[in-house]
């Protein structure tokens, strides 16, 4: 196991001044055992840290990123040059205060920002894994994170926090490693992926696979990229991250750079060009096969399944404190699914708080300026830190 600076990214760095983070390489002696029955070795985990680990090593918070997120939670993205995806939440004096806490965020296994994924070279063949990469699960992602913590010499986390797929990982942490974490904060997530969510993911995957440039997944060897398919996948998914009310408020039927309908199929409406832009910028930073693998991992997530269908049993005798947040207009991970987790925790008398925040911003609300969410996170972490005597 070795640790190096500057992970290798698939895309060229457009912000070479940005901190590209670090990477831990796990050798053949430390394989990652996967739920599918295979194992991954050697492999790498790319990660970022913010703040300082205290002497007692008790102030570490793991942030788990969502489907298309990455480790650049609070700093400039080295490929896009954009600010961190949770800059309002994480930083000095922010709700997740890096003056007090040591924040770790790692790119998930299967990802494309330096952690081993389908675009990396398979040491057995010397070629990119592509579809030979094993299917990974949320539990595999969490297992890899636990190995990263071992490598960093961190035994116990003060908290695991994540939204959407990150929230799934937080719940998996509570189920898999209840004694390695004090507080668990799943935001806008669920203990299982619903039929509707699987359906949307399948649309995205089919769009990618229908792109002739996908080449059966082997596009790297062919020197092509299924950008059109990946962009369509992103466009469809992006709709699910918003809400009807927010779309209407932001775009309505407003026309894009024109006075009247064109009677053609070029984008007439602002919402169309907005989605086109979302698709076009996404393909610059994301790998199509990674998108297939990570959406599949989310689809496979059903925490109760590991406990004979009884979600509550995933948390039996849990020593953890939980704080769950949902958003009223989130129809991807609606309040009912978040509350289902809270009820399961209640059923085993776990210490759980649940807050539903009123907003019309849909699922994406967890990434946006939601002062009540910030208050909840700050208040919860303050009380957790106080009970662990962290100043």
């Amino acid at each position, binding site marked *: 196991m070795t640790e190096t600076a500057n992970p290798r990214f698939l895309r060229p760095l457009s912000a070479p001044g940005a901190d590209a983070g670090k990477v831990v390489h796990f050798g053949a002696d430390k394989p990652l055992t996967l739920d599918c029955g295979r194992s991954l070795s050697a492999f790498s985990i790319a990660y970022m840290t913010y703040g300082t680990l205290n002497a007692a090593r008790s102030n570490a918070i793991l942030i788990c990123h969502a489907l298309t997120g990455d480790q650049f939670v609070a700093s400039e993205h080295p490929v896009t040059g954009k600010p961190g995806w949770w800059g309002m939440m994480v930083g000095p004096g922010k709700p997740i205060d890096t003056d007090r806490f040591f924040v770790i965020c790692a790119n998930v296994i299967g990802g494309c920002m330096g952690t081993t994924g389908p675009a990396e070279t398979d040491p057995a063949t010397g070629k990119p894994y592509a579809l030979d990469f094993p299917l990974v699960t949320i539990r595999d992602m969490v297992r890899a994170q636990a190995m990263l913590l071992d490598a960093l010499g961190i035994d116990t986390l003060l908290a695991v926090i994540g939204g959407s797929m990150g929230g799934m990982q937080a719940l998996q942490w509570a189920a898999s490693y209840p004694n390695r974490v004090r507080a668990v904060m799943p935001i806008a997530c669920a203990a299982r992926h619903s039929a509707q969510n699987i359906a949307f993911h399948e649309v995205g995957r089919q769009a990618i696979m229908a792109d002739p440039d996908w080449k059966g997944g082997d596009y790297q060897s062919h020197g092509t990229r299924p950008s059109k398919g990946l962009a369509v996948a992103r466009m469809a998914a992006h709709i699910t991250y918003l809400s009807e009310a927010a779309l209407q408020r932001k775009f309505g039927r407003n026309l894009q750079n024109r006075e009247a309908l064109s009677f053609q199929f070029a984008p007439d409406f602002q919402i169309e060009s907005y989605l086109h832009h979302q698709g076009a910028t996404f393909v610059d930073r994301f790998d199509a096969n990674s998108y297939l693998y990570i959406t599949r991992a989310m689809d496979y997530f059903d925490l109760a399944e590991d406990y004979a269908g009884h979600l509550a049993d995933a948390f039996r005798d849990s020593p953890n404190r939980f704080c769950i947040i949902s958003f009223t207009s989130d129809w991807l991970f609606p309040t009912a699914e978040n509350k289902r987790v809270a009820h399961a925790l209640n*059923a085993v008398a776990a210490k759980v708080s*649940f807050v539903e925040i009123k907003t019309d911003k849909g699922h994406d609300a967890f990434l946006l300026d939601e002062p009540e969410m910030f208050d909840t996170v700050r208040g919860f972490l303050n*009380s957790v830190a106080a009970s662990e005597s962290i100043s």
Partner: protein
Amino acid sequence: MSAANLRPDLAAIAEMIPQGARVLDVGCGDGALLEHLVRTKHVDGRGIELSQQNVNACVARGLAVVQGDADTDLAEYPAQVFDFVILSQTIQATEKPAQVLQHLLRIGRQVAISLPNFGHWRVRLALLLGGRMPRTKALGYSWYDTPNIHLCTLADFVDLTRKHGAVIVRALALKNDAVAGDVRPDSWGPNIAAQGAIFLLRKS
């Protein structure tokens, strides 16, 4: 927070709760009572609260509180997991008070319920002489904007507890925002003289 700063009915309920009990406070507000119980009685406390702002206040106090309401969320709690369940000044605002009472008796070994008394003499007089829906200090809303959609007298409530097989362990009268001491729940006196009451119940 010291007991002196608690609302008198809450302070009286706090006194009933044994050390180290597992407590569910339904409609826990900003968590003042729960925090008091955690500090002074070392209870394992949980709350349910409707207002998101109040839930945030509770979370910041380190309390475990779920945003929800008595009508819909109590059904999700398993039987007999709490030693003590509290419902203070809330039952009259629920949609299905009988069902709420049933759930409370199912979830908790003991249940403390405080409620306003629509049989209080001021209420009776206001309707009898004024011919208008009563507005009193304890019930200060107009008929068209009151959240209190299921008002009852103490005698009505005693009937409901009997119907659901509850035993009234104690009944305390509330007068002028203070606890006026133990009363016999089925006597006619408190039903006229008390502005409200606290009932300590258990399933028979």
